[in-house]
């Protein structure tokens, strides 16, 4: 209420009205009490704070009615009066200087505008907000035109109009934007059933979908479409044609399913693209575009991730790391206001209760040593176990990949042998997380911290798997490169030996320009890598969906329907329903995204697959969650900043950048496929473009910039800048910590002081206790408000006269008595009729030290 008053004081346009009514209060008080007219401010404050609700209500109403009445008859006059009256306080000659008045008016208008734009932040009732808003708008409307004089007037009016239009446009655009946010209702529904932590996964998924959509647009619009429309058609070149040997089976589903056959020789993969420098009538530089898109996919992702991280960091407050407020936070922030489902609410209640109990126990016996030792031991044990698991899975993958290399040399191998790597990786991804979770139960962390650990571990697992996979792939690539050299030699003497071969064959009359299907070709390692990634992605999708279907849905059906005829209660007992596994799902998403980033350079179509995947999984998982999962037993809230997810994403982005950068910079591209064929390294496409398409000096500049002599100092500079900024940030942090410590100290001091006082007070306060009833009534509000009446210099003129205090049941004495045992005062907080009483006179409130963080709301000063 106080704040409201302040606001009102500042901004209410009818300040005069206020003043009048305030004056009335003032008078009423005066007539009642005896200390008239010392400090207006204090008085007013008392008056404001103290009145009971009805009184306040009536006051408000009074004001409102007054306002309304006046509004009706001469609104402009009030406005005018208001503006001039405030001017009058500053300058006495307001009438003479129209310039000044104008400036004043301008200021007022600005103020009003600010008020309009911040209206929604005001803690007022809607009715009040609406009326104030209307008033302010009318005021602005009225005086806006009057501003600016002579020539400037028109311009000003125009500017205003434009500003108005702009605001309207912005609002419409905002309206449009919120309509465009997909799945809002779906997510809200999930949120209300499962609490905000599960919803945070879906929000993350949606965000991911947006990012992927942009990437897809980039790749599709700048690479795939131009190639399909303007590039050489299928079948015109060896790289765009299925080889003769494969043609018979190229359309079989089993072949297509492995992304061989026609799919392999389509625009989905790197190998399809031609190294022609420009294509079509647009002279579109496709190889250049391919390269730049490949780079900008990473650039854009990096930018987006970092930007949203920064935004999150801004939003999140100074982490919850200081444990000053354990109980307070538990009390005031533990309820998840988004819950709207009785079952979840039950779980939430239970979890709040247990958490309270836990912290009470912690508090009561903070010296429980053996427990801590046990816990530490368990945590170490858990970590050891998990590291063992990680090593085991790493070795398993290494083993499988090695084996697959021997398999690939053998003929006619079965389906299992061909897909062993993917199967093993998927299985590991399926079974390790639950294992980790079981192990993590040993550790007994708070669920939120536990979630982070769990995420970190699964992340390590996935990362290890991914990198072993990559290393194995690198082996493969090197092998292919060696093989390529051989083929290259063949193609060199091919034109010579070709005649012998073709006549010897005597098959189709191959004309001297060889049919593209027959040209011997290299293995094209880029396409192989791309296919590997696509396969991995697809198998990951399948495994995820099957897991959901079997692990969640079938289980839920089983539990639900077999429960009628089973020996024990399935719903409450062993299988029960599944919980939604946030950590696993988030990690799956992040990991999957890493694969997309890595693979998109070799398989431009991969992003399209991923967009489809995210789209379907949004619907599928929403459905699965709503239909077959139960809320977590310990429902906990996701903190607003999910920077942890983002951090993981950033890490995996960086890690997936590494192999791609390595291949771009230091592996030779295949000689007969892909946009960079014929070059020594992929990045040469840039040099080529610069040399051929740009004026000479650009090439010169480029060569200077690329000089190590410049790059190394630049890197040094960046390192220095990072170091400097880091140091600054640290200094700020230290200052922060210092301030915090100071505040803490202050509090302790005050507490001590109060305790001391409690022992000495009886003497000091004796006279106070013996006040006459009249003064007692005055001193009451004082007690209620600043109980730190450290200064016994109370100059209450009437007090201290006699022993008349013995009115039994006097709240005064009761309060004092209680003051010794525990900090009471609460029963005094609402003295029944305080508003009418005489305001307390005497010294201004002694707030020994103003409470640090909340700067004064202007309590002390009179504010007229």
């Amino acid at each position, binding site marked *: 209420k106080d704040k409201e008053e302040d606001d009102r004081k500042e901004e209410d346009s009818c300040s005069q009205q206020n003043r009048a009514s305030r004056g009335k209060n003032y008078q009423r008080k005066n007539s009642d009490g005896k200390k008239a007219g010392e400090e207006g401010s204090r008085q007013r404050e008392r008056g404001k704070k103290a009145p009971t609700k009805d009184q306040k209500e009536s006051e408000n109403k009074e004001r409102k009615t007054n306002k309304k009445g006046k509004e009706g008859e001469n609104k402009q006059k009030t406005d005018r009066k208001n503006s001039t009256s405030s001017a009058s306080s500053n300058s006495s000659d307001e009438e003479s200087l129209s310039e000044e008045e104008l400036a004043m008016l301008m200021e007022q208008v600005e103020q009003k505008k600010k008020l309009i734009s911040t209206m929604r932040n005001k803690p007022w009732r809607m009715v009040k907000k609406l009326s104030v808003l209307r008033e302010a708008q009318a005021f602005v409307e009225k005086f806006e035109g009057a501003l600016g004089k002579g020539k400037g007037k028109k311009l000003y009016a125009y500017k205003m109009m434009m500003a108005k239009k702009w605001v309207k446009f912005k609002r419409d655009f905002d309206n449009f934007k919120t309509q465009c946010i997909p799945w809002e209702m779906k997510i809200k529904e999930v949120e209300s059933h499962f609490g905000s932590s599960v919803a945070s996964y879906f929000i993350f998924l949606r965000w991911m979908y947006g990012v992927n959509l942009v990437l897809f647009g980039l790749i599709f619009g700048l690479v795939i479409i131009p190639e399909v429309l303007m590039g050489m058609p299928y079948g015109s070149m060896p790289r765009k044609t299925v080889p003769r040997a494969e043609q018979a089976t190229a359309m079989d589903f089993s072949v297509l399913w492995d992304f061989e056959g026609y799919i392999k020789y389509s625009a989905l993969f790197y190998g399809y693209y031609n190294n022609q420098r420009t294509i079509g009538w647009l002279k579109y530089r496709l190889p250049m575009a391919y390269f730049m898109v490949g780079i900008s996919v990473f650039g854009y992702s990096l930018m987006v991730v970092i930007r949203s991280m920064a935004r999150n960091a801004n939003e999140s407050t100074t982490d919850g790391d200081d444990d000053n407020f354990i109980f307070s936070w538990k009390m005031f922030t533990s309820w998840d206001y988004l819950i709207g489902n*009785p079952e979840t609410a039950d779980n939430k209640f239970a979890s709040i209760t247990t958490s309270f109990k836990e912290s009470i126990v912690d508090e009561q016996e903070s010296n429980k040593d053996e427990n801590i030792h046990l816990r530490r031991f368990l945590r170490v044990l858990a970590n050891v176990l998990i590291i063992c698991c990680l090593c085991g899975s790493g070795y398993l993958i290494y083993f499988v990949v090695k084996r697959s290399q021997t398999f690939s040399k053998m003929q006619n191998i079965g389906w299992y042998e061909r897909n062993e790597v993917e199967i093993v990786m998927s299985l590991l991804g399926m079974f390790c997380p639950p294992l980790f979770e079981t192990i993590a139960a040993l550790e007994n962390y708070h669920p939120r911290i536990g979630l982070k650990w769990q995420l970190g571990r699964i992340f390590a697992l996935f990362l290890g798997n991914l990198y072993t996979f990559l290393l194995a792939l690198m082996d493969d690539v090197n092998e292919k490169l060696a093989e390529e050299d051989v083929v290259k030699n063949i193609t060199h003497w091919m034109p010579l030996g070709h005649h012998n071969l073709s006549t010897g064959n005597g098959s189709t009359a191959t004309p001297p320009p060889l049919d593209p299907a027959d040209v011997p070709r290299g293995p094209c390692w880029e396409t192989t890598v791309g296919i590997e990634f696509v396969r991995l992605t697809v198998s990951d999708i399948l495994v995820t969906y099957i897991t959901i279907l079997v692990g969640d849905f079938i289980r839920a059906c089983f539990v639900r329907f077999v429960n009628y005829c089973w020996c024990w209660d399935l719903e409450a007992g062993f299988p029960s329903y599944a919980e939604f596994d946030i950590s696993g799902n988030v990690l799956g998403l992040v990991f999957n995204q890493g694969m997309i980033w890595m693979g998109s350079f070799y398989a431009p179509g991969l992003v399209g697959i991923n967009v489809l995947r995210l789209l379907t999984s949004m619907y599928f998982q929403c459905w699965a969650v709503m239909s077959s999962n139960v809320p977590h037993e310990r429902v906990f809230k996701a903190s607003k900043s999910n920077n942890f997810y983002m951090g993981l994403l950033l890490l995996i982005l960086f890690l997936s950048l590494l192999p791609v950068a390595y291949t771009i910079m230091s592996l030779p591209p295949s000689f007969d496929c892909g946009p960079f064929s014929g070059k020594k390294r992929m990045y040469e496409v840039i040099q080529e473009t610069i040399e051929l398409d740009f004026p000479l000096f650009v090439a010169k500049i480029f060569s200077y910039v690329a000089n190590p002599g410049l790059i190394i100092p630049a890197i040094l500079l960046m390192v220095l800048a990072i170091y400097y900024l880091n140091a600054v940030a640290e200094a700020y942090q230290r200052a922060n910590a210092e301030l915090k410590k100071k505040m803490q100290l202050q509090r302790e001091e005050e507490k001590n002081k109060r305790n001391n006082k409690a022992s000495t007070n009886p003497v000091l306060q004796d006279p106070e206790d013996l006040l006459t009833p009249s003064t007692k009534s005055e001193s009451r509000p004082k007690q209620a408000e600043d109980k730190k009446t450290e200064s016994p210099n109370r100059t209450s003129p009437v007090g201290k006269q006699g022993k008349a205090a013995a009115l039994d049941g006097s709240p005064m004495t009761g309060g004092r008595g209680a003051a010794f045992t525990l900090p009471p005062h609460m029963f005094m907080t609402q003295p029944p009729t305080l508003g009418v009483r005489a305001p307390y006179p005497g010294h201004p409130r002694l707030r020994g030290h103003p409470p640090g963080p909340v700067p004064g709301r202007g309590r002390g000063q009179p504010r007229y």
Partner: protein
Amino acid sequence: MGNKQTIFTPEQLDAYQDCTFFTRKEILRLFYRYRDLAPQLVPLNYTDKPDVTLPYELIGSMPELKDNPFRQRIAEVFSEDGDGNMTLDDFLDMFSVLSEMAPRDLKAYYAFKIYDFNNDDYICKSDLEKTVNKLTRNELTPEEVRLVCEKVIYEADVDNDGKLSLEDFQHMIIRAPDFL
């Protein structure tokens, strides 16, 4: 839902948009939610500002509030008359503050009011006790409740007056990681 809505005038909608954190569509959606609570009470035309209030029993039965232990308080704080009976304005107000776009300061202010059960502008011990009991459905023993309350006051009471003022509360809650 006709294309051209006739519930509000455009000016009203603009004013509502200025006063809340909602967009046009959301305001309309909220209106329909409001109306669905009592279709026979709420007219479909708000251009002449009918004076309609819905009783607390209806407000409290909304799925958003149904399971909230503080629903009564929320309704009381946001309602004009303090009894939980809401006009459309109050209704919009409530959802505006509870929406995720509202700034923390504003939320803290209203949260304070919500936890201040006896409306005395301080959160005192009895308020705290009520809060704890609501949160735990009376499953803590009185001693435990007392202990918790004492701890809360010990932690959050900056100016040492044995109860939490708005400043104390804001100071404490603004840095809570969970405070949405």
